[in-house]
């Protein structure tokens, strides 16, 4: 089934997204405008995307709110929004002793050996020993920042 819904951009003050989204949700439910969802992506502070078939519905939703403005730009397609929506990162099995390549951050491009795996408030953190240095250098890195090059189990 083809769905003609598009995403219209609403400009709001940075940091006020949650409040304004809560207000817009209450307004959409009470007025019955044809807006399916609202999306705020942390990469794009100050912008909310409203999923709707027509821009008229979105402009009706934000009408009268001084802090929210519907941008007259072209609507965004779902494919573009899909890239912004973050799905949970796939669980990669990393074990102690694996050789990994750092793909993000200050040590991008370096290889390291996993010394320990710890759980913190922000997710899984790896303690790595950089490979190719004269002395051992221990760094902490989130699991999303590395890619497995050589598995410990493959070696043995």
């Amino acid at each position, binding site marked *: 089934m083809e769905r003609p819904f598009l995403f219209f951009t609403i400009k709001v003050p940075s940091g006020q997204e949650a409040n304004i989204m809560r207000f817009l949700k209450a307004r959409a439910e009470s007025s019955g405008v044809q807006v399916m969802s609202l999306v705020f992506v942390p990469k794009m502070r100050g912008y909310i995307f409203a999923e709707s078939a027509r821009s008229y519905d979105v402009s009706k939703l934000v009408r009268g709110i001084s802090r929210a403005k519907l941008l007259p730009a072209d609507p965004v397609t779902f494919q573009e*929004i899909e890239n912004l929506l973050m799905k949970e990162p796939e669980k990669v099995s990393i074990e102690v002793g694996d050789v990994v390549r750092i793909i993000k951050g200050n040590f991008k491009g370096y290889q390291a050996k996993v010394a320990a795996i710890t759980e913190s408030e922000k*997710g899984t953190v790896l303690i790595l020993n950089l490979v190719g240095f004269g002395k051992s250098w221990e760094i902490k890195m989130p699991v999303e920042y590395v890619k497995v090059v050589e598995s410990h189990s493959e070696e043995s």
Partner: protein
Amino acid sequence: MREKRKRRRRRRIRAAGRVDGMPKFRACRQCKALTDGDICPICGSKDLTVHWEGIVVIIDPIRSQVAEYLGIKRAGMYALRVLG
């Protein structure tokens, strides 16, 4: 009189959109729903966290493409990602 009423209405609408400071929403670790209370409004869990990012408000879960993509079946306010 009509003008005065219009002005009052405009002021009321503006005031509703102006809430200072971010509300302290917490996300449910089970279903990612956002709440400012102690219990998740969707699944009733008490396992809540302040570490979350991104917001998705689902108004019509049947027709919304975002709801389908994220696997959300009930209307409400959700976090895009729960960090820990």
